[in-house]
């Protein structure tokens, strides 16, 4: 399992899947910018929860959770780094106070929010749609074609690599044998056929493309067009409102955002009083 599992598209239909990738990308960017703007825990928690409805409407909870779980290792690293570094290596070492703890959690949550929104985007956007969005954003068609073709051939090449591995194992190749250098060398009999076959494949692809009038006109038509619909306007509007609100808070009330530890403080006092 890896972080990337959380980015694999699965073909399902939901209102979120139907949205224009360009608008969705705008939303992701807004989330990204806001997450970078604030380093306090409270706004980041809000940011985390704001996105949950999208996940549920899209029905990709399972994949989404998997992507977060995949990111767990990095999240822990970020937490430890922040906590430990701040404690030992800053000029004026901070004592391991609750506020330092809160700061470290905030930094970790910032990372999680970023992963959350990007994985949301890739989980609900088909590569086809993405290619189309690129095309309609005036990215040269050659790049868009290269992108969708690459996505198309990833599973094919993965399967081919497996077959090649099987063929070489059947000739006595043991991939796990020997020291590190030997192990790397063991992969040569797999890499060479894979590369040769990829080259052969690309030649055949080029032939097929040529035979189907590749490059006939400058102005290619496209069977599909992305049209911005009501849902897209809605998402754009929500994103803009969130952004405006965030900027407003950042400019005028940045200093007033309370630390969560402050809420805990009176509680502690009451506890001591009773005892």
């Amino acid at each position: 399992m890896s972080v990337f599992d959380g980015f694999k598209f699965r073909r399902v239909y939901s209102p979120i899947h139907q949205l224009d990738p360009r608008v969705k990308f705008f939303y992701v960017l807004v989330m990204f910018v806001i997450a970078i703007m604030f380093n306090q825990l409270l706004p980041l928690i809000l940011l985390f929860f704001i996105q949950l409805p999208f996940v549920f409407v899209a029905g990709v909870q399972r994949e989404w959770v998997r992507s977060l779980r995949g990111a767990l290792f990095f999240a822990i690293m970020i937490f430890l780094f922040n906590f430990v570094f701040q404690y030992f290596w800053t000029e004026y070492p901070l004592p391991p106070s609750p506020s330092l703890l809160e700061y470290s959690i905030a930094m970790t949550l910032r990372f999680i929010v970023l992963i959350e929104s990007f994985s949301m985007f890739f989980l609900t956007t088909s590569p086809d749609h993405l290619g189309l969005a690129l095309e309609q954003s005036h990215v040269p068609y050659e790049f868009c074609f290269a992108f969708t073709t690459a996505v198309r051939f990833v599973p094919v090449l993965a399967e081919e690599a497996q077959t090649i591995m099987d063929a070489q194992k059947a000739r006595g190749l043991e991939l796990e044998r020997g020291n590190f250098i030997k192990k790397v060398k063991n992969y040569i009999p797999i890499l060479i056929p894979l590369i040769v076959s990829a080259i052969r494949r690309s030649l055949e692809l080029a032939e097929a493309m040529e035979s189907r009038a590749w490059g006939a006109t400058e102005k290619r038509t496209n069977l599909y067009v992305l049209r911005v619909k009501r849902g897209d306007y809605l998402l754009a509007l929500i994103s803009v409102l969130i952004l405006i609100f965030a900027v407003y808070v950042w400019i005028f009330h940045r200093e007033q955002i309370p630390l969560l530890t402050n809420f805990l403080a009176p509680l502690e006092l009451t506890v001591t009083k009773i005892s």
Partner: protein
Amino acid sequence: MAIIETTDLTYTYPAGTKLSLQDVSITVEQGEFVVLTGPSGGGKTTLCRCFNGLVPHFYGGKLEGNVVVTGLKVGEHSIYELARHIGLVFQNPENQLFALSVEKDVAFGLENLGIPRGDIRKQVDWALEITGITDLRERPPHELSGGQQQRVAIACVLAMQPNVMILDEPTSFIDPVGAQKIFDVINELNKKLGITVILVEHRLDLASKYANHVIVMDEGKVVLDGEPREVFNSDSARLIGVGIPKATRLYQILKEKGISLKKVPVNSEEASQLLREVLTHDRG
């Protein structure tokens, strides 16, 4: 009317040392179903590439002699101009589909030609319907079976409404039942739509029943060219090692023992019909 005509076609690939085509002169009439066969490396694929301009435009090298396809001199027209008139389907279905959905793949050629969207939609629907894959429309090609993929590849070419369709060993990776379906589709294109078909094939047992013209190539030359019965029954076909239909072979070895059937059978239906005559006649 001749739809394809080559005269003294001679060609060597840029890196090649020997002639890939040598003085090839053939004529294909409008509406024919041609089976092109012969040993591997005999120049069949190269000849197909000449028909739609991959040779010489894509591969380079010098092409001598003349090829005229649907009235266009191949040397003087680009591949994309020729693509409107002549479609080429390749052996490996996997490497000629590059989109993420069947529909998008079928539309690819038309998109390249810059045809209005409404017309693309109509032609794509039509091509999917004829090849019997309308229900696969939204599937990603790599999830389909080889036989289905090859039918998609045919639809991709068909959508451009060509007059001539060339298929280079389209069934060699496909199991017999899948192959049968592909042959049926090709036959329909030929019989119902009047598209001229050139089919490169080794498995003559399956393909020969559709053909009305057979060309055999070996070492870059055309060695036999004519009606299926004549070609399959000729001695040189056996010498070159063409896998003639078993029905024809049975005719030949029966003849060695003095039993002659009225004519040369090229498929099982004909053979059983002719054998029935002999068997029931002798009884009476």
